[in-house]
């Protein structure tokens, strides 16, 4: 695809603001996903993420840029998020991304499973006015099975696990001890539901 787009008229790096591009690069190398909407803790509401818009509008440029430095820019259409992965990684590096996948997915899965038992719909897990609150956290912390799984996934506690997924933009922290999932986090759960219903 990139090859056919190599036309100079289409690929134009000049129109990409330098600072925003640097900001995006920083997000990616820190292992974060860039989601369409971000939680703005000052106004307390979801806001359009300029980094996402830039990535989306200049997809060909960014795809080429990251390809040239050994990454592939991945876009999850249903989950509305971007991330990069290294191309041609060796096995030891793959181990780290694998353990990340275990950590992120185990944490999201337990949150989703808990939410499905206590509420009408998991949809609210991704809404900033609902999500997980203090009393939910108490119940999660009291669940012995969840705790054992967290430990064997490499987390110290629920706080550690929530910090891990929040740092990577799979969830947002909306208050002192309240959290909700981002479109990326919700996409994982919705995908599980979709797959189960079709199986």
């Amino acid at each position: 695809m990139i090859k056919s787009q190599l036309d100079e008229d289409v690929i134009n790096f000049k129109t990409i603001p330098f600072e925003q591009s640097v900001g995006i690069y920083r997000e990616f190398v820190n292992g974060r996903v860039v989601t369409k909407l971000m939680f703005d803790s000052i106004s307390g509401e979801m806001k359009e993420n300029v980094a996402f818009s830039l990535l989306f509008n200049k997809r060909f440029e960014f795809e080429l840029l990251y390809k040239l430095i050994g990454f592939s820019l991945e876009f999850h259409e249903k989950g509305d998020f971007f991330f990069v992965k290294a191309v041609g990684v060796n096995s030891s590096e793959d181990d780290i991304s694998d353990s990340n996948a275990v950590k992120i997915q185990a944490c999201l899965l337990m949150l989703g499973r808990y939410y499905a038992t206590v509420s009408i719909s998991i949809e609210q897990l991704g809404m900033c006015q609902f999500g997980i609150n203090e009393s939910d956290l108490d119940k999660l912390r009291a669940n012995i099975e969840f705790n054992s799984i967290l430990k064997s996934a490499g987390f110290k506690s629920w706080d550690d696990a929530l910090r891990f997924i929040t740092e990577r933009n799979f969830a947002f922290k909306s208050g002192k001890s309240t959290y909700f999932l981002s479109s990326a986090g919700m996409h994982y759960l919705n995908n599980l539901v979709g797959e189960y219903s079709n199986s």
Partner: protein
Amino acid sequence: MAVRFNKERYSTIETIKILLNHSQIMERAISRMDKAGERFISEVDLGVIVLDYKEKVGPTEKTRLEVAFSLRNLLESNILADKDTIDGVTRYMFQESVLGLFRLCNASLFQELTDSKLKSLLASLWRLESVLSDRSKTPYGSFDFKESVDELFSQLATLQGSLQRNVERMKSVGAELESMTTEASKGAVAFASSRGEYLSKITHLFERHIQPTQTFLNPKTRIEEGPNLFELLVVFRDIFDSLEMSSEAILISRSYLGFGNVFKPIDQVAEDVGKFIYKTRKSIAEYNALESAYQNLVASYQKTLSADLRRSKIGNEFVDHHFAHGLKRHSRPLPHAVGDSPAYIRAVVNEIDTMADDALCVDRYKDVIDGVDWCSTETVERIKRIEVIKGLLVELRIRDTVDLAKDLHGRIHSLLPFYSLVDLFAAIRIFESEFLPKIARITKLNFFSEIEFNEYRYSYRITRVNIISGENL
């Protein structure tokens, strides 16, 4: 079932071991009996289960299974309590204790405590209470009294054990709800037709098993016929207190607390099941999907509980490889700028110094090095070669390094003629096992790096070295 006329048979322990090693057979047999509500299984049914299972195992295990499950072996090792033939059907009755063992290992095989079971347990406690409190019929110290006290504690222990297992069983109620409503969640038509069916199943589970247990364990419950469990325990404690039997009184207080602890999880299960009944089709679909995915996660987790102690981290069996695959922190290129700080200059001078030293010691060793045939594969020559490397390494200055292999590789590859991977192995081994332990702390890191040799790349685990005493060898 396929009985082989084989003289061999196993002892009871050995048979139970085989049964436990292949626990699926007994688990299937037990769930079959429970489903039918019978206390026996027909010879044919058991035979089919064993036959099915045998497909999966190797020839040695197959023979062991055949012997273990032969009628003669089962009878002689007392696994079977009885066997009878009615209308030409041979039925096996297993020992209750053998079945109990399997129920213990697999929570889903445990039978729920029903209302009537709980009531009969309570009734026998009432009887003991009347016996123990009537001092005229059973005076303190009489045999009747002693036996009743023993009976009381064994009853309480049984009750607590079965309640505990019941709670474990109910904690897995989520998985059960999922399997009950799988069909219902798949489509609108299926939902309408099967809703009534699953609702009645859930209501049965709730009304006949969860609620009675909940009521039984609730300290506030009032029962027409007599005191509830907790009131009874207080009565028993007072009896023992008045007789100055303090250790018995403490035991009773302890079981009071124990029963109280069981109440909370049951309450939680009841709440969850109650909420489930009000769920819509969409939310049941979500619930089921997450429950089934969660069971996969639990299965991955349970693998970490196996006998293999090396495995403590959860595996990736449950992971969806299409979701954000390959996401991780990436290292950014670091600048290789020339610094002007004193520390930087010291490091550079140090490096040059070391290189000069290394070169000088090779000069001293030149004759020895030339005396070895470096291309030979003869053992004698190889030993000589390692001796030379060792002599050379003694002369090398030992320093802190974050990656021993890379450091040594960089230093000796220009020093030795026909340098090869084997030399690096030898050097690392000599350093790690002979030189360093006395003066440095060696740390094997859980990170890997790569080294290149003749167009091949080799991966190795990084070793870090910190010199503790400043002395060189």
